[in-house]
């Protein structure tokens, strides 16, 4: 708001003070930042919640490049050729990127500390939103009540049906541990051997290991599988389309997605200006209302209707039953677990 009044002030001054300031505004309007994003409905929600309001307010244009590529962050910094300034990135990946020196430190001359919420800054990035990876199932397959825990997902006798899981080592290992009886707040440090012993039991029953979000929706929508591991907003989307889908928060993983600025990015000053804007309560709420990934700014819930709040990963009741994450442990162990998982899947 304050900024808009400020701009109006400039406009008023420009009208009276002559061509010099008008030129300044013209330059301001052609300034552009480039954001690496996932495309599809994700980018559409961002466009409405972040990009358009930001451009309206500052005159800085936002262009997007899809899909998100962690590898490109490294390649850009190594080569010095920048396709984008800002990227969305998972917290564990951001931590690894920060350790490799691939991200800009927060520019505190642009970002105002007093306008941030607790834990907004991590590994030189700003918290963007939270994404749940949940157990989801088709209600019509289980009229007597569906699975409620990962132990139920593993119980193929009590809950018969085709199953699918996400082809992601670190997530899958956590689910296996909870299925084996590890409490959700004790999953880390990961007992990898125990997890793989548990995974051996479910492997023959997994019809497909999916890799892309729309693939997971297609599987559940077409009834190709009855139980599946799925990102929460993808499942909510199916519910909104009228499909009989239920989402379980027990033992879900909640991963924070971060915004990061590529080290040495040409428009980094403008990038931090955008990020300062994007983590404020109103834009965060606008995004969450469109796409059910949770806001990281607790103030955002003021602008979100209660029935939507309950379906978001950062809703306190959902967080309570989800796995308690440990980003440092995850970042440290990912490569090793991934190699073992690939080997396990291929054998």
């Amino acid at each position: 708001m304050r900024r808009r009044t400020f701009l109006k002030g400039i406009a008023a001054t420009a009208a009276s003070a002559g061509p010099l300031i008008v030129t300044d505004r013209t330059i301001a309007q052609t300034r552009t930042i480039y954001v690496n994003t996932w495309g599809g409905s994700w980018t559409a929600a961002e466009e409405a919640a972040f990009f358009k309001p930001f451009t309206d307010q500052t005159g800085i244009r936002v262009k997007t490049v899809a899909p998100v590529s962690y590898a490109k962050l490294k390649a850009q910094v190594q080569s010095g050729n920048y396709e984008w300034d800002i990227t969305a990135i998972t917290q564990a990946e951001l931590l690894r990127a920060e350790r490799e020196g691939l991200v800009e430190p927060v520019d505190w001359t642009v970002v105002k500390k007093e306008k941030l919420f607790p834990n907004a800054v991590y590994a030189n990035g700003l918290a963007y939103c939270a994404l749940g990876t949940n157990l989801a199932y088709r209600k019509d397959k289980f009229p007597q009540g569906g699975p409620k825990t990962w132990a139920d997902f593993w119980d193929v006798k009590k809950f018969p049906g085709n199953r699918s899981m996400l082809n992601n080592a670190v997530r899958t290992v956590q689910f296996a541990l909870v299925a084996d009886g590890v409490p959700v707040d004790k999953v880390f440090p990961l007992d990898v051997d125990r997890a793989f012993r548990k995974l051996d039991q479910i492997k023959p029953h997994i019809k497909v290991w999916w890799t892309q979000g729309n693939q997971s929706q297609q599987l559940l929508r077409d009834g190709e599988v009855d139980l599946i591991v799925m990102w929460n907003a993808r499942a909510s989307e199916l519910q909104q389309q009228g499909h009989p889908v239920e989402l379980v928060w027990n033992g879900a993983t909640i991963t924070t997605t971060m915004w990061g600025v590529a080290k040495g990015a040409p428009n980094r000053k403008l990038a931090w200006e955008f990020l300062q804007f994007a983590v404020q309560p109103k834009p965060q709420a606008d995004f969450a209302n469109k796409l059910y990934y949770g806001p990281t700014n607790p103030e955002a819930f003021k602008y979100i209707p209660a029935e939507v709040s309950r379906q978001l990963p950062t809703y306190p009741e959902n967080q309570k039953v989800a796995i308690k994450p440990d980003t440092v442990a995850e970042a440290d162990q990912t490569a090793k677990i991934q190699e073992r998982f690939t080997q396990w899947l291929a054998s």
Partner: protein
Amino acid sequence: MAGELSAAAVRTEAAPRSAKGNATAWFLIAPSCLALVVLFVVPIAYVLLLSLTDPRLSIAHYQRIFTVPVYTRVMVNTFVTSLIVTALCLVMGYPIAYVMARRPGWISTLLLTVVAMSFWTGFLVRTYAWLVILGSKGPVAAAYGALGHGQAPQLLFTTFASTLGMTHILLPYMVLALYAAMRKIDASHLKAAASLGARPIAAFREVFMPLSLPGVVNGSLLVFVSCLGFFVTPVLLGTPRDMMISQLINQQIEELLAFGFASAVAVVLLVATCAVLAIYNRFAGLDRLWG
């Protein structure tokens, strides 16, 4: 490589070889040589360099490829799958190309249209089509049930599905390569064979088939090499057990930022592909690939 070839060609054609003519020839091919160096030689050299230096100077990445079972397995699987797909394309493509080349008229036009249409349809679209056809609610499963066999076996997410998908996508390459070779075979050869008493089968075996061999070799090479780099189709239709080399490279780069290891895998794939080309060159001659 192609640069050297064309240089040689220019030199043999400039009959009275003069220093001046030579200089002109080099001048003329310089732009394409430069393009080749910038677009191919430099990037490949960079990949090779990365595989030996990222994160530090060592041959550890190569040792890992050949000692960790899963990576060796992925390599072997990639080559075996490519061989199977090539063989299937050949078996299915040969009769189609034969009819197209030997039976001019509406049937040949129709076949050519069908082959060209699937050639032009995006492979992603064709892969998704198989998801529908082979799905548990798809026409194959429905036909199976309607014939009274009960529940159809799982077709999707199997090695069968991914092999079928890849064969379908690469078949047009094979058919077009065969067709190009067969069209060049003069029909009078077969008439001559018949006039000398050969029955149709013998004429085909003794005359037509040997003359079509360049097409067989070209098509097979094209399909085999394309198949080595397959990515999306096995991911969507197959099982994790069918992992191909490019999936491995993608995973190493996108999920683990392991540029060095991924480069090493790419180099091994490249060397293996070159080995195939070298064998081809030994027996068939690379220059025949271009007609």
